[in-house]
């Protein structure tokens, strides 16, 4: 991951088509186009896993079914705890056989339709529920040295609690960190960078103009009419945190994608 930062490789979130889409074939084509553009430009395509508990197709099955190329340094699969054990092993085995190196382990958001991994599934009978920590321990044990695993860090949660969680995640095998969206200089991120200098940190840059959608994430109400310039914020983040990588969420492929090439200039 350190290499990604040195080589200025953006992490670009590519949302998979939702399960309930009524225009599946068009959505698949759109997904493939975005994925290929990310790889062709040398960036890393990051495929989410039922983000916000909304049922979507898995990254691995999309790559397989659409015969998309996999370049080990350029694909990251999000993996949460809302799977059956059988599904989890299929995803991990497919990642391994495809040569996918990067996994982002997250606890994730559930829904009525999503099963949840049970402690016994991942050999963690000492806990009541499976989080990213138990998930990573399982992957580390069953797929030793196969994957480079990252974890999420939320600077908007109470800091003591979040840093304690981070320590458990690092202990479980996390090798890089991706934050929640950062829209300005953030004291908790500053502390993270100061206290964990050896762990590569990737900041999530919010690339949608709709800043109010972040209200839940940041924990306070952002008015709907708040003006927000994603490109200017991305440049600010590069200037403020030159040691960090960038994870671009909700990037506009029509208007923003071609412009980001010149943004990382530090």
């Amino acid at each position: 991951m350190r290499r990604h930062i040195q080589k200025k490789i953006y992490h670009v979130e590519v949302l998979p088509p939702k399960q309930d889409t009524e225009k599946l074939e068009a959505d698949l084509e759109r997904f493939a186009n975005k994925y290929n553009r990310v790889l062709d430009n040398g960036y890393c395509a990051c495929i989410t896993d039922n983000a916000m508990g909304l049922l979507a197709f898995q990254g691995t099955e999309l790559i397989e079914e659409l015969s998309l190329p996999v370049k080990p340094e350029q694909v990251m699969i999000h993996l949460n705890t809302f799977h059956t054990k059988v599904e989890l092993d299929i995803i991990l085995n497919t990642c391994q056989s495809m040569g996918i190196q990067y996994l982002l382990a997250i606890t994730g958001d559930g829904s009525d339709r999503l099963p949840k991994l049970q402690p016994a599934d991942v050999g963690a009978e000492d806990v009541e529920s499976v989080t990213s920590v138990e998930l990573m321990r399982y992957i580390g044990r069953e797929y030793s040295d196969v994957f480079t695993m990252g974890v999420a860090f939320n600077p908007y949660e109470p800091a003591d609690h979040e840093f304690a969680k981070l320590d458990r995640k690092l202990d479980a095998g996390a090798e890089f960190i991706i934050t929640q969206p950062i829209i300005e200089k953030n004291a908790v991120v500053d502390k993270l960078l100061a206290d964990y200098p050896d762990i590569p940190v990737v900041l999530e840059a919010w690339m949608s103009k709709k800043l109010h959608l972040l209200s839940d994430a940041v924990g306070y109400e952002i008015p709907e009419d708040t003006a927000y310039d994603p490109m200017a914020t991305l440049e600010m983040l590069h200037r403020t945190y030159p040691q960090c990588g960038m994870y671009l969420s909700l990037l506009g492929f029509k208007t923003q994608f071609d412009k980001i090439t010149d943004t990382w200039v530090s």
Partner: protein
Amino acid sequence: MKIVVCIKQVPATNDAKIDPETKRIIREGLKAILNPFDTYALEEAIQLRDQFGGEVIALSMGPPKAEAVLREAISLGVDSAILLSDRAYGGSDTWATSYALSRAIDTIGGVDLVLCGKQAVDGDTAQVGPGIAAHLDWMQATYVMAVDEVQDAGMTVKRMHEDGYDVCEVPFPAVMTVVKGINTPRVPTLKGRLASLKIDIPVWKPADIGADVERLGLDGSPTRVVKTQPPPPRSSSTKRIEGSPEECANALLHELRLRSIV
């Protein structure tokens, strides 16, 4: 084993509103989904087929757009699907519906097991499964929470009730309604979803199933809905507690004691 799973397209009840004038569900703009309880029946059927061989057929009755839930069933792994759709079926109550479904099951032929969700979330009657069994004159087990054993002649199941469960032996052919928790329903795979787009789903009219149209639709339904009304709104209020953490904790404890919660 030849298994038929009866499924239903229902409005997503989380979003449902009732017209204050007509007291009916406002269906315009309401998302239609596969009845959540039916996902457990589908999963159980697929697991039984995968373990013991055979085929699974999804069967639904409804307007043409109900085909969507049959395609969803295909994407989950059932082998084929049939839609009963015709004006003559419109307005059927649970008795007429179960009559039509039983005729379709009879037409399919050679069926060992019919699986249904315990009830549909729009009507909440839980009558269609037992109705099918009555029309076919087959054994039935309702509220099945576990399948313990499957033999050539039948199966041993656990039926859930309020105080525990019954262990029942059910000879084939049989009808079973299953409860949430009998399994963990799978979600469709992309491969399954793509396959579901290509499959032909036959539409059967009353003549195709040898149904007596006098026993279908509104005229064939002994039930009349006299009145429908929304449940009374839940009373809830929010009280904000201000102060230091200690003061807040004490105030919260006081409020909980007032309500005999602690």
